[in-house]
């Protein structure tokens, strides 16, 4: 049946969305369904040929043939639907890529992804390019007049200037205004929030 493949893809997109909706702490993308996408694109080409054939027939027959008209119309609708499903799938994925880029601010995301929860091979080539360009755009945006504001900083209102943090992963030594801290796993520090914001986002520290 025409449209079945596209339906699968939409279900996949929905699953992706739910996956990210539930644990909105970390964004992750499942594998890019290259085959499915290619299959749908092939289907569209086929439908296109069908529609041309039907059109030609109509012109030859010259009679007001309701059946072939309907057939032609349904073919066009199928093509339209397939296209919209493909675009929706890609849009869901690109939205998640955007969130990923915001979250991993400033890091080289391609390197960051290796070994992290997001596997680069789950992205298509075009998506990899997109992610890279988007990260560049964000870096550019953040370094302008708005550098003081730190756009990618925490979006929960700050409560205290100083907070207690626990070190989850060894992160080496950091320098702050109040001296140097040696971040060894399982130790605790009382530090200025704005100094360690980055490290909390990257998962080295936990706020307690």
């Amino acid at each position, binding site marked *: 049946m025409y449209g079945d493949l596209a339906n699968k893809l939409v279900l996949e997109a929905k699953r992706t969305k739910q996956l990210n909706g539930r644990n909105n702490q970390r964004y992750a993308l499942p594998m890019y369904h290259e085959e499915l996408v290619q299959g749908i*694109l092939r289907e569209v080409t086929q439908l296109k040929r069908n529609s041309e054939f039907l059109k030609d027939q109509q012109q030859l027959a010259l009679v007001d043939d309701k059946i072939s008209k309907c057939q032609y119309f349904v073919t066009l609708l199928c*093509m339209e639907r397939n296209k919209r499903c493909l675009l929706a799938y890609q849009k869901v994925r690109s939205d998640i890529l955007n969130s990923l880029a915001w979250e991993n601010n400033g890091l080289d995301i391609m390197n960051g992804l290796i070994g992290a929860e997001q596997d680069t091979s789950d992205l298509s080539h075009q998506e990899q390019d997109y992610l890279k360009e988007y990260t560049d755009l964000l870096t550019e945006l953040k370094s302008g007049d708005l550098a003081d504001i730190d756009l990618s900083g925490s979006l929960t209102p700050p409560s205290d200037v100083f907070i207690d943090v626990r070190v989850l992963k060894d992160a080496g030594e950091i320098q702050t205004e109040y001296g140097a801290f040696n971040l060894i796993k399982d130790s605790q520090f009382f530090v200025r929030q704005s100094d360690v914001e980055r490290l909390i986002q990257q998962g080295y520290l936990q706020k307690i």
Partner: protein
Amino acid sequence: MDINIDDILADLDRDTTAVEYSDPSQQLPSDGTTVMMNSSIDPNRYKHTQIEISPEKDFKQLMRLWRNERCSPELLPYPSLLMSRMLRRVQEQMDHIENVSMGFLEEYESLEPAPTPNNKLQLLCMEAELERVKFVIRSYLRCRLNKVDKYMLYLRQLNDNEDDPGITPLNELLSSHELHYHEKHSAILLKLLNNSIVKHMPPELQAINDTEGSVSMVDEPNWNKFVFIYVKGIPNDPLLEEGESGKPCYTVSISDLNEDVELSIGGIYVMPYSVIRDLLMQEKIELI
């Protein structure tokens, strides 16, 4: 000893106020010129900001805009003057805090340079305040960027039919960095869609801003979204009428229901956004 600490505090107070008071005078000339261009769209706001520009008022205004932005379905015009003032103050305050914490200011007084507990506390308050202001600005800008992404195609269309007088042109709606972001992001997103899908389609199906077909492909703000509003009103407004209860009020009409509603000053209402949009733009009401 006590007197010394008081002196330090007094000195700090004087210093901060000095910074703040110098603002309006610096800002006014440039306001005058920029306002000339803006005045055609929004004369009311111009009057409002021109009366007095104090940091406190600016902050209140920012909070108001932040709330409005977060509640409204559409992207509201960018307050470029206010934002440039706020950003400058953040910068100044950061420098100021740095100076105080390094003890530069105390040297003038030739007092004991040791940071006293009082001094520390004051510093802490200043830093907390600064972090909060920064948070509000950050949240505000992120909210706007989110909307820029969401209505990417819609905003692009706005740019195309500039002749329509009812529509604010894109370069007044967005700040320069938002414009840049919008342009760049739509370019790379379109490239992604084009490379992975659209270019493999037959030519007649390659449009991505098709509004003719089954469902429009362009996401528009939901103009009929219900929003909570607080009617603030501006003094001596000719639009104000005497309501049934004798209080001054604005009258708006809901076209769907064919009904007129009185919004009396100080009241809180729930309304479809499209109905109260004009009042919001004139700053007569606030979204809450």
